[in-house]
């Protein structure tokens, strides 16, 4: 197990290295000068030159990259060009709201989707199945930024019961936090719920056709016992896989939801930094997201192998 883990971890290195190069180059290819972006119209040529020198933007790209990545390896993510904050605390500060939002969306999606998926699968081709499946497809087809706008329209403008956007820390005001959380979490949770429901349904259908389930039914065990005792237990693996995929998707999904609801998470931070040409922040945030993403995939694989001894570690 330990050896497997180490091999897998080592295989992540080239991917993360590649991701860091892509992030580094991509943000530099976006037209626009960070020095001008920061100092604006009023800056004279000497101030701009001084700033470029301070930010080491006058160095060759390779030098800039090597400096950046070697600092990263010592835990130094550098400072934001816009405002001079240290990047690492900035990332951590943005990670908390993202984690809270993702967790809420995940809970919403699981609470709706798993029961719906099971009901749809066990009563295949019933009215309930058709309705649930169709709703799931609708959820999957809703552009989340539009759903966000509709929710704001309904619950902040016509029926002003929930704040339309913004963030309150749960440590400062737990109730305020929850009220700000509802709309973005529902927005993000909808697409997740749709995907989860479809996956649960498909998995349950497959498992229920398996021989042991048929045997169990033939033995005269109650339908309920069969579903909850046998089928669901065997469906948990694909659902774990799905959870992994979902967490990965969440990292993308939060980008849209956070920008619509001004939720100060990692997605909004990244988008804002791209538009402001804040190189160190973009690079740090993208590297962090990519790391999280590959780690989530790894953990999913690990849980998978732990749940199912048949999967051999290779």
């Amino acid at each position, binding site marked *: 197990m330990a050896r497997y883990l180490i091999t897998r971890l080592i295989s992540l290195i080239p991917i993360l290295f590649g991701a860091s190069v892509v992030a580094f180059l991509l943000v530099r290819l976006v037209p626009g000068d960070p020095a001008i972006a920061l100092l604006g119209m009023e800056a004279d040529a000497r101030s701009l030159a001084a700033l470029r020198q301070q930010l080491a933007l006058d160095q060759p790209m390779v030098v800039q990259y090597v400096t950046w990545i070697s600092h990263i390896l010592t835990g130094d993510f550098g400072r934001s060009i816009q405002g001079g904050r240290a990047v690492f605390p900035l990332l951590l500060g943005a990670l908390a709201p993202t984690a809270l939002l993702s967790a809420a969306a995940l809970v919403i999606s699981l609470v709706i989707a798993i029961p719906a998926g099971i009901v749809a699968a066990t009563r295949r081709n019933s009215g309930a199945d058709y309705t649930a499946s*169709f709703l799931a497809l609708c959820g999957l087809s809703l*552009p989340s930024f539009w759903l966000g706008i509709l929710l704001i329209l309904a619950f902040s403008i016509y029926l002003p019961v929930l704040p339309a956007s913004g963030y309150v820390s749960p440590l400062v005001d737990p109730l305020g936090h929850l009220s700000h959380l509802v709309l973005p979490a529902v927005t993000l949770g909808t697409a997740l719920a749709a995907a989860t429901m479809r996956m649960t349904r498909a998995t349950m259908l497959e498992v229920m056709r398996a021989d042991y389930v048929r045997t169990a039914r033939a033995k005269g065990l109650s339908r309920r016992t069969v579903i909850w005792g046998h089928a669901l237990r065997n469906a948990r693996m694909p659902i774990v896989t799905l959870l992994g995929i979902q967490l990965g998707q969440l990292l*993308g999904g939060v*980008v*849209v939801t956070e920008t619509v609801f001004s939720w100060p998470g990692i997605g909004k931070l990244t988008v804002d930094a791209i538009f402001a040409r804040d190189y160190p922040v973009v690079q740090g945030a993208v590297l962090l997201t990519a790391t999280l993403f590959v780690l989530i995939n790894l953990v999913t694989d690990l849980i998978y192998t732990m749940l199912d001894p048949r999967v051999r570690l290779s």
Partner: protein
Amino acid sequence: MSSEAILPVPVKHSWLRAITRDPRAALGVGIVALAIVAALGAPLIAPYGPDAPDFVNTLAPPVAGHWLGTDELGRDVLSRIIYGAQTSLFVGFFSVAVAGIAGTALGLIAGYFGRVVDALIMRLMDIVFAFPSILLALAITAVLGPSLTNAVLAIAVVNLPVFARVARAQTLVVRELEFVEAKRALGFGTAHILARTILPNILAPVIVQGSLMFASAIITESYLSFLGLGAQPPTATWGNMLRNAIGFIEMAPWLAVFPGAAIFLTVLGCNLLGDGLRDRFDPRD
């Protein structure tokens, strides 16, 4: 992403007939057909030009004559939605086509040759895949500058790994099949085997994947437009109509409701159709 290989099944009868027999798929075909008709026939169907302003009649609510109201420049919303179908379908089709062709080629090569080639291509795909797709698409359009073709390219790049993975997984299965061995034994060249023998046998799952990616491409395009990174004004796109509507959400909510509904319906149609295709080609169900 589905990495399990789907074995090719012989197509017994017209897929279209099979699709239309499934009511959900039929609904999908209907919606997609409607969108295609709107896109192709826009100049004939639309009651007004898509960017004919009327500075006197701005932000008019839906009434006879302007069935979906007018926008902040007095342009007819219905006409702009009809013309907007052009952008959405154009981006959806070409981004999927580009990603599908390039991704399939990469997956085919990786799967067939294996070893270093495989490792190289797939690690590259892993790198692309390690970025949240929307963020990568956003960054690429920011690099290339906002335009319709650049949106197509950006969406194609982020979808590349999906097609490469599907094609590779399928190639790995097909490669070992007897008739491929036979061709090799008969001395056919690699290019011939790849193009004539393997490719036709891996296409079905790629096409199914494509129909599902079409839906997500439309959403991504509208999001890029929503951020101001899509087609240039005054071109009507559903995404930039939504973007403009935000400022008038209290005065003129219909501006935000209708373009979003157009995106939703079109994407729903594509998904219904994609589900139908998958059910048709997936022998497990």
